[in-house]
């Protein structure tokens, strides 16, 4: 795309553009030359990386969501945001499992984590991998689709069909990029409530989610207590700790340090900061595991070799694994979405600086809070904080710390004890809802 404005846009770091105005070719034709020069510069920085490998995954009208996959609605009203503005023309993409009953009383809302999406229990249309919660959602499973109608929306700010920074800004007909407003977990939940309004679903048997999904569950229970009969908060926290924020900041800086990020405007070039996003994912992935899990899975084993190669290749299996995790992530995730969603998590504090117990005062919602022993990202102490506050609010709360060496990721994996607890909790919620 030819840039028509004469001046190079300021870069994210505020420093002058390194392919700046003194470069001879820039003097020839302002707009076109800028584009060429910047491509040349980026190619130079990425010496040895073919341009094709740096291309962004194809953007459809709905972010990275291939046309015709899952369901999608456009909210009729602009969505008010915690930041003070309102976002017009918001789309919410979602996937469903099971059947909604006649009086629409059997809905269970599943909220996804940072890098997941609405394809919780279906083969993913982009990656062709099984859904991220197929262990939990399905006929006869803890969230039993023979009984419940399960609805999983892609979060606001995401890139799998819900409005996010990769979506087209109706005002400019170009992707939002960094002109997308900073959003919050509260905004995500508000968009989900608007989706339910559109579908005519008033009450939820339960809202269930792990990690960032668990934060949305807490927000749901705080903002819409009458709509939520039961709330399952799994491996989450009531606010982001400094450690959580610190790890996210490392990830964001990795994205922004990639020249292909182009101040968030990479869509223009048909590129995406894949290297930066991959590094962000690699860092984050370490925080999802435990030392024991790494030890068990990889030890100090070497990858396809008998001895260290005395270089910086992926000698160790753990390196190779992380590189693979990073590489495979970038095809299904938008780098700006990663910035925006991690920001929303960092800002998360369901008590909004006030007293957590007061936030849930008088609630009739039944809570299940679950943590995992080896989860150091959202440790048991954070779950206990939630439980204490719920006790203070005289709320009905159950809490279990599940023994697991699988780290934060345990909530996604085969953990029979956790599955039994969730099943029992939802059974009761269903029974009390008259199902």
């Amino acid at each position, binding site marked *: 795309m030819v840039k028509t404005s004469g001046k190079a846009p300021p870069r994210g770091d505020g420093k002058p553009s390194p392919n700046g105005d003194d470069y001879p070719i820039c003097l020839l034709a302002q707009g076109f030359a800028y584009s060429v020069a910047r491509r040349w510069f980026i190619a130079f920085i990425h010496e040895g990386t073919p341009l094709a490998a740096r291309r962004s995954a194809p953007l459809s009208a709905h972010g990275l969501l291939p046309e015709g996959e899952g369901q999608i609605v456009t909210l009729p009203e602009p969505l008010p945001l915690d930041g003070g503005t309102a976002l017009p023309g918001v789309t919410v993409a979602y996937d469903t499992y099971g059947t909604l009953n006649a009086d629409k009383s059997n809905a269970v809302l599943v909220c996804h984590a940072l890098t997941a999406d609405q394809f919780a229990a279906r083969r993913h249309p982009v990656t062709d991998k099984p859904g991220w919660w197929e262990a939990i959602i399905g006929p006869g499973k803890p969230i039993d689709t023979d009984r419940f109608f399960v609805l999983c929306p892609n979060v606001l700010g995401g890139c799998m069909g819900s409005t996010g920074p990769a979506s087209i800004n109706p005002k400019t007909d170009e992707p939002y990029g960094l002109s997308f407003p900073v959003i919050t977990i509260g905004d995500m939940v508000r968009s989900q409530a608007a989706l339910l309004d559109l579908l005519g679903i008033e009450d939820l048997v339960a809202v269930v989610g792990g990690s960032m999904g668990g934060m949305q569950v807490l927000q749901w229970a705080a903002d819409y207590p009458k709509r939520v009969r039961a709330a399952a908060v799994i491996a989450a926290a009531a606010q982001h700790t400094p450690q959580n924020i610190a790890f996210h900041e490392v990830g964001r800086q990795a994205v922004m340090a990639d020249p292909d990020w182009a101040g968030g405007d990479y869509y223009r070039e048909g590129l995406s900061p894949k290297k930066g996003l991959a590094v962000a994912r690699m860092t984050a992935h370490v925080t999802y595991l435990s030392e024991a899990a790494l030890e068990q899975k990889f030890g100090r084993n070497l990858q396809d070799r008998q001895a260290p190669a005395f270089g910086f290749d992926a000698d160790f299996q753990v390196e190779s694994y992380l590189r693979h995790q990073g590489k495979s992530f970038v095809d299904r995730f938008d780098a700006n979405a990663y910035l925006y969603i991690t920001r929303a998590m960092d800002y998360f504090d369901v008590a909004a600086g006030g007293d957590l*117990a007061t936030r849930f005062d008088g609630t009739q919602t*039944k*809570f*299940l809070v679950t943590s995992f022993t080896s989860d150091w990202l959202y440790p048991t102490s954070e779950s*206990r904080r939630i*439980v*204490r506050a719920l*006790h*203070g609010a*005289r709320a*009905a*709360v*159950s*809490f*279990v*710390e*599940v*023994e697991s060496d699988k780290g934060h990721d345990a909530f996604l994996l085969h953990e029979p*004890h956790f599955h*039994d*607890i969730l*099943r*029992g*909790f939802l*059974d*009761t919620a269903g*029974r*009390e809802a008259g199902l």
Partner: protein
Amino acid sequence: MSIFSTRQDLDLIASLVPNGASVLDIGCGDGTLLRRLRDQKDVKGYGLEIDGEDVSRAVAAGLSVVQGDADTDLSDYPDGAFDIVILSNSIQALRRPDEAISNAVRVGKQAIVTFPNFGHWKVRAHLAFQGTMPRSRALPDTWYETSNIHLCTVKDFVTFAKDQGFAIKAAYGLSGSEAPRAFPPGKGELANLLSEAALFLLSRA
């Protein structure tokens, strides 16, 4: 079979819990007592239990149970949060029963405490004549298997309650399959001799 969780033990506790009360059962196990109180007395029941498997069973039964340690986690609960707090057959297994009972009396408007009575004549006789650690219906395990580390007698408990400044609202002795016998706490000598287990209803003075 232990004397606890028998019909007379559970019936006695149920008789002391008002209809519709909010109840915290500390060391609730799989929720047997809470289920009964919910079904019979329509209570709003909550539990605290250290064993994860027991918690799962209780949650599956629809109870609100928190996995936690009565020795450390009771301080998290706000004052007067519950109508009744129950410590059923658990104080003798705690590291600091005094703190747990104080917390129970603080967190509940009233507290029900039951425990095996080490002053029962059979226990005394067992130790006196056999010279080995007593085992009975109330104390079924060997000395090396038991989780009991702070056993006491009815007399000890009455003195403890006085020292702590708790009001004893009612006291009962349990023995065999007989109906529970109320006794005036000031005259606990006979109950101390005849009761396998005891129940005290406490409140802040």
